[in-house]
């Protein structure tokens, strides 16, 4: 299975990529997606995660075809 990974804002700059792809034999947690996509970089404390554009916790499971996103606290408005 393949998972699309996206990074935004300061996290995109820190990780050095905007988008990545992660392959796995079985469903894996969002935290594992991060580890695989960033070659085990430490995840900054206040990182927010989303699966298919819905906020989730890091232990949520991602499935084949999912889009997983990581980003810093939002600062719109």
């Amino acid at each position, binding site marked *: 299975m393949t998972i699309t990974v996206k990074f935004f804002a300061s996290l995109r700059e820190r990780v050095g990529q905007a988008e990545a792809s992660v392959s796995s034999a079985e469903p894996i947690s969002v935290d594992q997606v991060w580890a695989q996509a960033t070659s085990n970089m430490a995840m900054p404390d206040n990182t927010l995660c989303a699966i298919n*554009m819905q906020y989730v916790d890091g232990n949520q499971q991602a499935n084949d075809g999912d889009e997983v996103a990581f980003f810093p606290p939002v600062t*719109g*408005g």
Partner: protein
Amino acid sequence: MASEIHTQAFDPWQAIQHYQQAHMAAGKYGATASFVGTMRDFNEGDEVQVMTLEHYPGMTESYLDKICEEARQRWDIMDCLIVHRVGDIQPNDPIVLTCVWSAHRAAAFEACRYLMEELKSRAPFWKKETLPEGHRWVEKNTEG
């Protein structure tokens, strides 16, 4: 009920008027509460020359719609509008507009504020400031 992402400068007062003329029946609403956030040319004591607003296309629209829908469930409102700017923004440019129409004022005031607070805490936008010395990401929003 609408939410719009603009990549160019927008006039919030015109946006309200246009939406109102297109969607609100004359003589039926009694209260219109609105909020406009405008870019200041300084922040935390530093001069800001340009602000760049990044967002997560798709998720942004979905959360703005969700926030409008929640406001509609919590208060007796007739309609609401959110407009948010993205891209490169100049000082004095409007960044965000929230506007609510209702029969009576309490619902309009409260729902309008709700839209702003929820937008600030959940909608995936990020601000980057260009200062004379370089760039910096805004780390967190001011308290509401």
